[in-house]
């Protein structure tokens, strides 16, 4: 019976958040690495090839199922936990205690909601066309295979200023979400050694800034035509 508690008790529920969070962090690394191909500045050849591999090979497709499971678990559990935690204080304070913690640590649900709204837009922009409805524009790879020209779709999408602004704001939200989430996940998993904890906290902050910059620079680069 105790085994179930690893996922259902208050500590267990946090473990689910932490583990899915770490999994999503790993996905971000892959996603960022893959998208960084746009900066090869080769008209999208390398990027389209990589995107095609991800979309056609069976391994990433299976992982994608896991990814979606992870995202939805993270979102649903996150909302449930937030609701539950909020319900623990029926009458709130007249003056909130804001000095003892960072605003973004207290705002994970709001940041998460921004990210969820962003995902819906993001999926509509890219995932739905590339996986379901299809992309009309095709690109020819060096080996002669014809693939979706996702690169062109990006250029088209990021030609509109409001889209770029929304993406950049969302990237910043992601950064703050990670600034708390990264180190918190490891605490939840049980890293209490001071040295490792310090290491992970610093790494977490560095990672948050790095990821925010990488992703935010993509639409910006395209909008301003820094890459062709």
């Amino acid at each position: 019976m105790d085994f179930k508690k690893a996922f259902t008790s208050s500590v267990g529920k946090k473990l689910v958040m932490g583990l899915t969070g770490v999994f999503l962090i790993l996905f971000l690394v892959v996603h960022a690495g893959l998208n960084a191909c746009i900066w090869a500045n080769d008209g999208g050849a390398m990027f389209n090839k990589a995107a095609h591999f991800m979309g056609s090979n069976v391994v990433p497709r299976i992982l994608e199922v896991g990814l979606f499971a992870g995202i939805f678990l993270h979102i649903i559990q996150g909302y449930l936990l937030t609701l539950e935690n909020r319900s623990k204080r029926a009458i709130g304070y007249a003056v909130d205690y804001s000095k003892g913690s960072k605003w973004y640590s207290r705002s994970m649900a709001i940041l998460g909601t921004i990210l969820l709204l962003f995902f819906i837009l993001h999926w509509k922009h890219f995932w739905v066309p590339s996986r379901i409805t299809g992309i009309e524009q095709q690109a020819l790879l060096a080996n002669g295979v014809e693939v979706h020209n996702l690169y062109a779709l990006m250029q088209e999408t990021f030609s509109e200023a409001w889209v770029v602004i929304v993406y950049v704001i969302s990237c910043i939200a992601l950064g703050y979400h990670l600034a708390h989430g990264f180190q918190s996940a490891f605490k939840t998993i049980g890293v209490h050694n001071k040295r490792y904890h310090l290491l992970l906290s610093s790494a977490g902050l560095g990672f948050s800034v790095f990821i925010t910059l990488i992703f935010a620079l993509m639409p910006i680069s395209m909008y301003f035509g820094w890459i062709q």
Partner: protein
Amino acid sequence: MEHYHMNLNLKVWRQPNSKTPGAFKLYRVENISSEMSFLEMFDVLNEQLIRDGEDPITFDHDCREGICGACSMYINGKPHGPWSANTTCQLHMRAFQDGDTIVVEPWRANSFPIIKDLMVDRSAFDRIIQAGGYISVNTGNAVDGNALPIPKDHADNAFAAAMCIGCGACVAACKNSSAMLFLSAKVSHLALLPQGDPERSNRVVNMVAQMDKEGFGACTNTGACEAACPKEISIANIARLNKEYLSAVLTSE
């Protein structure tokens, strides 16, 4: 240290009992010395209220030297008031200036129901300890105190966790009303000592179960508890509790 006197406006939560809803009430106290403690300022106010035929304000307090953990006021948006590593009873009036308005609220958490005014019921903490916050050794069973050497840093870390005074400021500070800092201080204290080893798995599982049953929230590692803790109990204890808990439940058969 220069001493001064001040007049203050107090906005205090008044609630006759757990069933009747409460509200803030405004009071004015005059000629308060900067040398007074915060609770002595409340003593002055209460004497004033009694003389005026009003009901004095009820609040928990006992040792007035920062160790019993009874005092529990949420002052101007922080448990135990503006100073760090401090209890309400050790807060002194030189923290305030003439003309200040001070808002005083009770600990707020469903698991700490209000008894009257600023006094809350923290018996949930006792029940969490009952669930396993001890070492099962009957009187007379002990071996010689030096029979079991304990590395100094383990003993020191255990002591740092055992300094918890059970005041509940961590719960009051946490946006989730989580009792994890309190719980983790006890789990760490006992897990760091060899005497606590035989019961370590059951202890942490049962104590967490009791905490959940009492209706405290889950920890989201914001760090507010640590910042409000009068004894500066480290949030690293929560991570240690997580480790203890997960290794207990994940390896259970």
